């Protein structure tokens, strides 16, 4: 049991000074930081996974043949050939208007109808999504198809330019996970110090209880209960503050729909983890307190 049952008369053996020390407040701060780190870690990990899934099997074939007619024919032939290939899930020729609209943002012409933009010799692009599984084999087959249908065209795997971003995000997620572990250790250290301080403060009572026949378990249960309740208060407070911060950030995040930011979310499993963390923290605190108390009591005859 996380918070052990102790008869009311036995609880009075320790003076009632709940929330009088700094422990609940330190635990509250650590819990808040733990939950925020965990939320950041889950969000980043999901974002990295989303980007990874999106880029792992996608390439763009860039056809730069000088003759625009030949370039268009090569693009059309490549799209047809790729669409029919068993290793390709989908192939799509990027329309010239789409390219012009994208470039227009950089040229200061939102609609992409700038005459100069129209005159630019833009390459033809074909986006290809591979069927999952043997990506290396699919790449070799595509290279053969490109050599046949559009000699000289470049194949650009999306992983080449988005891969480092995904790796960075994944690294950040791991750092967040490490922070969660570190804060759990810090919380355990706080509980250990609290348990030892409690033993020191109440040494006379403990000695008396020992001398009239109390067992280590009876004494440890008293302190374990008190420490578990104090830390539970801190954990509840820290969780409430973290929840408020996460809801605020989530509300602002909901308005972000562009780019990488749109891929970050907690998901059901993430929320479940965040809800489980406070309970795990209470269990960790109670277990740490119990082990610390029993170890310390063993040093007393």
């Amino acid at each position: 049991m996380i918070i052990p049952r102790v008869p009311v008369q036995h609880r009075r053996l320790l003076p009632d000074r709940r929330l009088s020390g700094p422990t609940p407040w330190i635990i509250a701060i650590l819990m808040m930081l733990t939950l925020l780190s965990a939320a950041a870690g889950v969000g980043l990990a999901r974002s990295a996974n989303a980007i990874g899934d999106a880029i792992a099997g996608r390439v763009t074939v860039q056809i730069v043949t000088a003759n625009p007619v030949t370039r268009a024919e090569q693009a059309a032939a490549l799209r047809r050939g790729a669409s029919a290939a068993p290793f390709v899930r989908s192939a799509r020729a990027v329309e010239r208007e789409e390219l012009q609209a994208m470039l227009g943002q950089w040229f200061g012409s939102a609609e992409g109808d700038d005459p100069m933009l129209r005159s630019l010799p833009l390459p033809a692009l074909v986006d290809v999504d591979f069927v999952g599984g043997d990506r290396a084999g699919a790449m070799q087959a595509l290279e053969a198809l490109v050599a046949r249908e559009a000699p000289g065209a470049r194949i650009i795997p999306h992983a080449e330019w988005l891969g480092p971003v995904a790796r960075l995000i994944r690294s950040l997620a791991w750092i967040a996970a490490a922070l969660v572990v570190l804060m759990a250790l810090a919380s355990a250290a706080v509980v250990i110090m609290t348990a030892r301080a409690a033993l020191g403060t109440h040494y006379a009572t403990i000695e008396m209880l020992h001398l009239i026949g109390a067992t280590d378990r009876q004494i440890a249960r008293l302190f374990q209960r008190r420490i578990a309740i104090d830390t539970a208060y801190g954990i509840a407070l820290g969780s409430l503050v973290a929840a408020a911060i996460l809801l605020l950030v989530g509300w602002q995040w909901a308005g972000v729909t562009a780019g990488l930011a749109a891929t970050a979310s907690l998901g059901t499993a993430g929320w479940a983890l965040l809800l489980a963390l406070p309970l795990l923290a209470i269990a960790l605190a109670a277990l740490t307190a119990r082990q610390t108390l029993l170890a310390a009591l063993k040093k007393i005859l």
Partner: protein
Amino acid sequence: MTDAAPIRPGGAMVEFSGVGLRYGPDAEILSDISFNLQPGSFYFLTGASGAGKTSLLKMLYLAQRPSRGIVRLFGEDLVAMPRHRLPGFRRRIGVVFQDFRLIPHLSARDNIALPLRIAGVSEEDLAGPVGEMLSWIGLGERADAFPPTLSGGEQQRVAIARAVIARPQLLVADEPTGNVDPDMAMRLLGLFEALNRLGTTVVVATHDIHLISRIENAQMMRLEKGRLFDPTGALRYPPNRA
């Protein structure tokens, strides 16, 4: 509940053999202590301040293991006994401390009830004995008072009540009448004597020579500079009883 075995018939309740005690690297404060305490006997332990009375009592009530020698209590070797078995033995021993050692945030009633609660006696079953004990020590009206609000004598009475409430087999008292008036001292001694008649072995450390003369058949142990003289059963005190 106790995990200690009953004393075999004719066996000593307490056996000390060649016991020595030292704290850290210093010289022994108790040396070559050997004696037996028989069940149902009454003993006085005397000696000058610093002679080692309290240290000897600490070994008797299992707050201290000896540095050497053999200590047997209730027929079992306590020197080699694992500490998880000690609580069972401690519940058979009542202790009256010189400095009372009452728990300050517990009322007089709760202090007295403590040994019974630790032993797992239900609240219903302990209410009667605790009430009777409070009345007997004259603190029925102050049952809910906390130790800091009690006088030295009242605290002493609560400490004695706590020591005897569970009807211990061995009662160890360190200067139990040091803070009470002569009348209360005699009443407390009467309680010890009554417990002794019921079979409790009593060991009282005291300087009070008048107290010693009040108990018939009491035996005396005298500590001098860490060594025991007049071991149990060898000499009686006072020798010149009129």
